[in-house]
């Protein structure tokens, strides 16, 4: 057993993180920046940061991921990163010719105190940024928050840089999708289109990290929100910000800078959260929900009814990012399941409050931990003391699932050992159907696998 060293006795750890349930800010910033068309993400730090983030995203999406780095050296740590960034911008525009460079910082550049705003302004004065090109930055110190914070900061930064109010309201609604998969973003756009609502969705990684095979390597894939999209977000009727941890800040920026009112919703994962999303969109756009969407909802509800006996009362451990965990928990509760352990390495202040809303009466029975020390190790210890029927989270759960023989549904970032998340959404009614199918699949597979011969049945 790989995790044989994990004892069931829980001792207080003050300083040690074992098997984290998070990673650092810059990877989130890089993912968000990839959701802009013709944009090259740029990592202002050591070369390794950029290599790790690109590798992590490539492993998750099985797609090429392009990003540049300031390639810090020993001298940089003494004299600061200004020379590196100026050189970098020159190299980038000469060699890769993007329309936009989205710079994010790292622990090193933050610690040595580089002032990115000033350096980019200097680059502009020095003529290192060609006419009509854009360079903006997000501050993403790795020792604050988590990858989720990095995503949020980058979306806020792109909003701040691009969104403009021309005082002429456009008949469109902004959707900030939060950190979800390209498949989810595709589904959100498709739902809006079915409702007949024009939306501006950003960041948008569809056709960026789920590119079709075309026989060529597009350095800048055809997808991504365009500069025009991002600008016009300031003229939209309203913003629907999905995922409070990832989208609230950008929505606030749209409100304060362009006076676009915002509704912040939990991610539309599961029946009720999707209901709220559809209802908000319907209300703001003043449209009727078409029969096709009602039917899809009906099919989900039908499946939940058909299958209730297989999931009712099952205890679930889940870990990952706050936005996903809150909505997943709500869905599990409405299936009659019991989210028993919920862990996120992300220190989101409002997490308990949101979980309380999502869990309702089940809140008291659940162990919830966030931030420092909220890692996979503690979750495993809880499970060792009182096991669960289902585990939901990213690939790093596979050790626990194997050691403790627990059915395991992969969800979140990163998924390194399975495919599907790029193609099939988990948001919307269709997404909930897929989630439920996956949950049922693993639970029933285990039942079949473990059943003694006489109890192994054709129908279940």
């Amino acid at each position, binding site marked *: 057993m790989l995790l044989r060293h994990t004892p069931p006795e829980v001792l207080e750890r003050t300083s040690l993180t074992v098997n984290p349930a998070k990673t650092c800010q810059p990877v989130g910033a890089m993912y968000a920046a990839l959701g802009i068309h013709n944009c090259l993400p740029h990592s202002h*730090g050591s070369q390794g940061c950029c290599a790790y983030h690109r590798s992590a995203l490539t492993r998750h999406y099985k797609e090429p991921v392009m990003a540049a780095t300031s390639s810090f050296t020993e001298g940089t740590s003494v004299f600061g990163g200004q020379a590196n960034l100026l050189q970098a911008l020159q190299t980038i525009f000469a060699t890769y010719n993007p329309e936009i460079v989205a710079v994010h910082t790292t622990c090193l550049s933050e*610690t040595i105190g580089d002032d990115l705003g000033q350096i980019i302004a200097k680059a502009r004065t020095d003529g290192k940024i060609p006419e009509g090109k854009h360079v903006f930055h997000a501050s993403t110190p790795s020792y604050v928050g988590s990858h989720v914070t990095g995503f949020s900061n980058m979306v806020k930064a792109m909003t701040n840089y691009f969104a403009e109010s021309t005082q002429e309201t456009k008949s469109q609604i902004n959707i900030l999708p939060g950190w979800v998969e390209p498949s989810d973003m595709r589904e959100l756009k498709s739902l809006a289109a079915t409702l007949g609502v024009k939306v501006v969705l950003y960041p948008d990684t569809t056709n960026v990290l789920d590119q079709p095979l075309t026989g060529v390597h597009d350095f800048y894939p055809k997808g991504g929100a365009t500069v025009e999209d991002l600008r016009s977000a300031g003229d939209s009727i309203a913003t629907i910000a999905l995922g409070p941890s990832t989208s609230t800040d950008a929505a606030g920026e749209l409100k304060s800078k362009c006076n676009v009112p915002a509704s912040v919703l939990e991610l539309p994962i599961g029946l009720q959260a999707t209901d709220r999303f559809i209802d908000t969109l319907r209300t703001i756009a003043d449209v009727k929900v078409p029969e096709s969407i009602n039917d899809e909802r009906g099919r989900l509800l039908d499946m939940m009814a058909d299958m209730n006996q297989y999931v009712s009362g099952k205890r679930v451990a889940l870990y990952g990012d706050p936005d996903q965990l809150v909505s997943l928990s709500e869905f599990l509760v409405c299936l009659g399941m019991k989210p028993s352990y919920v862990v996120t390495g992300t220190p989101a202040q409002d997490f308990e409050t949101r979980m309380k809303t999502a869990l309702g009466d089940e809140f008291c029975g659940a162990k919830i931990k966030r931030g420092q020390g909220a890692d996979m190790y503690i979750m495993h210890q809880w499970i060792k003391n009182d096991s669960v029927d289902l585990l939901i989270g990213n690939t790093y759960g596979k050790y626990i699932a194997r050691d403790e023989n627990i059915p395991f549904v992969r969800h979140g970032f990163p998924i390194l050992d399975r495919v599907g998340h790029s193609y099939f959404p988990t948001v919307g009614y269709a997404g909930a159907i897929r989630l439920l199918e996956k949950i049922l699949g693993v639970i029933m597979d285990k039942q079949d696998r473990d059943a003694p011969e006489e109890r192994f049945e054709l129908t279940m």
Partner: protein
Amino acid sequence: MEQALQERQRQIYRKGEQPFQLDCDKQSASGSVSQRACVFCGSRVVLYPIADAIHIVHGPIGCAAYTWDIRGSLSSGPELHRLSFSTDLREMDVVMGGEKKLYAALIELIENYKPNAAFVYATCIVGIIGDDVDAICKRVNQEKGIPVLPVHSEGFKGTKKDGYTAACDAMFQLVGTAPVDDVPPISINILGDFNLAGEIWIIREYFEKMGVHVVSTITGDARVRDIQRSHGAALNLVQCSGSMSHLAKSMKERWGIPLKRVSYFGIEDMAQALYDTAEFFQDAAVKERTAALVHQELSGLLPQLDKYKNDLRGKSAAIYVGGAFKAFSLVRALRSLGMTTALVGSQTGNRDDYEQLREICDEGTIIVDDSNPLELASFLEEKNVDLFIGGVKERPIAYKLGVGFCDHNHERKEALAGFKGMLNFAREVHGTVMSPVWKLTPRQSRQKAKECAA
């Protein structure tokens, strides 16, 4: 713009078209989409497989998260190396310093896991915030009685190669700290194999069959105690010279142990490694057993290779790997499958490596140092290759172009070393090159159209 591109030109060479000159050992230009990593990455991958030690990353969480169980270095015993330990430095720690946290974390770890040693990786900001990692390591070593070794692997302090050196320096502190009375005279250390997919087990078995005792394997399936007594071996065999030369050289200086550069990839290089070792010991029985072993392995292998060779003859490949030394073996191994190499490059090769590559490559082969995805993609298209051999970041580029791919890096899942590995390699290359999927891709139809027009 001109200048940037011209500078890149100096790191690209086309054999036969110009006198040989290739810039290497250079820092990547700021702003490049380099495939390279950093010092920490170098140290971490080298030390990672030491399975009965704890490896704690001192710094913010990212570096620990990204290197958690990412390399398939198998262990025949303990698996401490596959867990992720970090001090997860936060904003307050950056202000107040992280020494207390590191000390406490080490104590907690050692008490819980009872490791035989601890490696402490100092990442980017640790030096900047002024933590004295050496002093903490020394203190914990005295209190807990196990070696606690600082690894100075701040990412910005150079390239991945400098990380290898830092790792070697840390390990060298272990060498010579355990008795070696029971080490027989015909004995070796295997340096520079990381036991991906169990490769070191294959190699080790060959040496044992030859009658050569293996004292330590560094670092695939390594144990702290074996490294501590590795100075008792008569010879160091060094593969992946980029990562391990420094340790081998230090051992030569301090303990007078000679070293040989070897490679276990491909038929020729594998056989050569065994023969060279036998030759070194000048022992008739060992030599005899070696000849018999190679003969036996080859008579089993060659007929099996033929069936793959028939399909692969005339196909061409591109190679882009971390160290150049591996590239030599790959060029030869592909040749033994009837394939040619149209492009070969590495992240960290030096002048000698590239000179040697030039010698073994065919006319027209492109040799490249520290390349980027844009360049690689354009070379793949220009040379219309059938196979790309590289690592995680290269794989999707190959596939997008409709080219087969073989991971010869951390993510290989089949043992590719040894004679047995050569067969796996042939099977894997054959599988991907001959996949019917490529027939459906636009690249193939475009190529066909071109041929028809001609």
